[in-house]
């Protein structure tokens, strides 16, 4: 007999950061029913952030990426079905169909299928040496290809593009970064941070082409040998990384008739899709964010994956919901640690503390008398205190914030 409502068997699609975490949280919450994770990659759930950072530079063994060692899943009675893509959802029967034809029954289904890198529809896009980066297999290929230095063109100045540019430059590659916008991180970072990061990359030898489009990848036989830009310039290279954003893996959900919008699967505050037996979490989901007063957004971050995994697990296991945090993120490039909290676009006024000249500063973003976001570069105390202030959402004194003689701790308590 099917267990109605809550506390039944759980099938998780996607063995990534969100999918792995939901299984751990369910077991930690004492959920005793069967839990199965079905993932198309051959790996146990792992974290991706090092793929563009330490892993790419070498020296980080693959097991360091695993969220838990393989033995954990057996010990906690979590059934892992790896290397098996899910093909379809039969909502009426509450069954999943795997590509091999087998079906799996569920009481609760959690879609944690993440995103895939967007591709450029230009001639030569399938040449050997044109890379994308999402998983371990991609990172292994890219790392092998970066060995022996050479010339790399990175297309896209988002976090992945910048981190790979930094890692490759550190490995001795000559790097050119091509971006459509006129600054790095044009959609997410403030001008002071973008200007600073660009200068740091240039100091490491990275060349930029801003306001540029890729017209074609040029081959020498099967292998890429150059990139032709829209204005006709040809950048000679031996390898390319295309990092121009991501598309949600929401096709399963769309074909099953679940509500999708804004490039992902729409969920409510408890992670439920338009079918109450089906949750969607992590990069693939479009969620109402308390930090935005409930506005729907799709976020791609570890914080978001973990928070939503915890929300869904608490609903399924009927335990108290987790404490929610404003979105946070980090990025490592060269000797720089960028830490951010909140979303920069939510503010209209900024205050700089510290000194970009010495490579240590933070940009505080205000909307009225509220602190809405902080971007900190090698300024962890500003990030830590700023994160508490953003979470608290209480009025703050702009004068104190803008006064370098007032310690950031004192700013947090000034009114």
């Amino acid at each position, binding site marked *: 007999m099917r267990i109605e409502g809550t506390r039944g068997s759980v099938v998780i699609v996607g063995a990534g950061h969100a999918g792995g975490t939901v299984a751990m949280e369910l077991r*930690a919450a004492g959920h005793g029913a069967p839990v199965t994770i079905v993932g198309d990659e051959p790996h146990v759930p792992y974290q991706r952030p090092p793929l563009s950072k330490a892993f790419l530079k070498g020296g980080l063994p693959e097991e360091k990426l695993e969220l838990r060692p393989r033995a954990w899943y057996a010990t906690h009675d979590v059934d892992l079905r790896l290397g098996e893509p899910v093909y379809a959802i039969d909502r009426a029967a509450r069954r999943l169909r795997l590509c091999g034809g087998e079906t799996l029954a569920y009481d609760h289904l959690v879609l944690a299928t993440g995103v895939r890198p967007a591709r450029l529809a230009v001639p030569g896009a399938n040449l050997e040496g044109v890379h994308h980066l999402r998983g371990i297999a991609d990172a292994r290929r890219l790392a092998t290809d970066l060995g022996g230095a050479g010339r790399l063109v990175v297309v896209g100045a988002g976090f992945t593009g910048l981190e790979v540019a930094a890692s490759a430059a550190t490995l001795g590659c000559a790097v050119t970064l091509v971006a459509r916008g006129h600054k790095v991180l044009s959609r997410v970072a403030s001008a002071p941070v973008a200007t600073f990061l660009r200068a740091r990359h240039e100091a490491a030898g990275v060349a930029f082409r801003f306001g540029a489009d890729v017209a074609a990848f040029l081959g020498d036989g099967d292998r890429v040998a150059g990139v032709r830009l829209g204005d006709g310039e040809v950048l000679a290279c031996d390898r390319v990384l295309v990092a121009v954003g991501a598309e949600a893996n929401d096709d399963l959900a769309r074909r099953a008739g679940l509500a999708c919008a804004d490039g992902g699967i729409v969920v409510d505050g408890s992670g439920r899709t338009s079918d109450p037996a089906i949750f969607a979490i992590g990069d693939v989901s479009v969620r109402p964010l308390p930090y935005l007063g409930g506005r729907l957004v799709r976020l791609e971050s570890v914080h978001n994956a973990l928070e939503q995994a915890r929300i869904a697990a608490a609903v399924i296991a009927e335990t108290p919901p987790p404490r929610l945090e404003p979105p946070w993120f980090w990025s490592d490039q060269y000797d720089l640690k960028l830490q951010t909290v909140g979303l920069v676009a939510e503010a209209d006024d900024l205050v700089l503390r510290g000194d970009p000249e010495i490579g240590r500063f933070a940009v505080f973003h205000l909307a009225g008398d509220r602190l809405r976001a902080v971007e900190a570069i090698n300024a962890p105390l500003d990030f830590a205190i700023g994160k508490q202030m953003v979470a608290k959402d209480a009025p703050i004194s702009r004068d104190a914030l803008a006064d370098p003689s007032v310690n950031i701790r004192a700013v947090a308590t000034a009114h």
Partner: protein
Amino acid sequence: MAKITYVSSAGCERIVEVPTGTNVMDGALRNDIEGIIGDCAGGCTCSTCHVYVEESWVARLAPPIDIETSMLELAAAPLRPTSRLACQIVVRDDLDGLVVHIPSTQR
């Protein structure tokens, strides 16, 4: 390799072998020791890997760098002079015998 003792907030001890070059947070997660979360997996941005180092060991560890001291501000449990972030304690052979106490909360 170093044998590290993790003491839970309820006082239960677990002794596990942790490979040199990994860190005290990895040692906990890979051995299913509860109470150390590690949301950012060592990115030093979440402060959910807070531990209290046994008094007698404090001086024998490499001292915390600025980012660790700053990020401890966000630890959920009260800070003590022995507070550290487990992901920033890199395991060396001479840490054999290290004892860390896990706080009652990380979030």
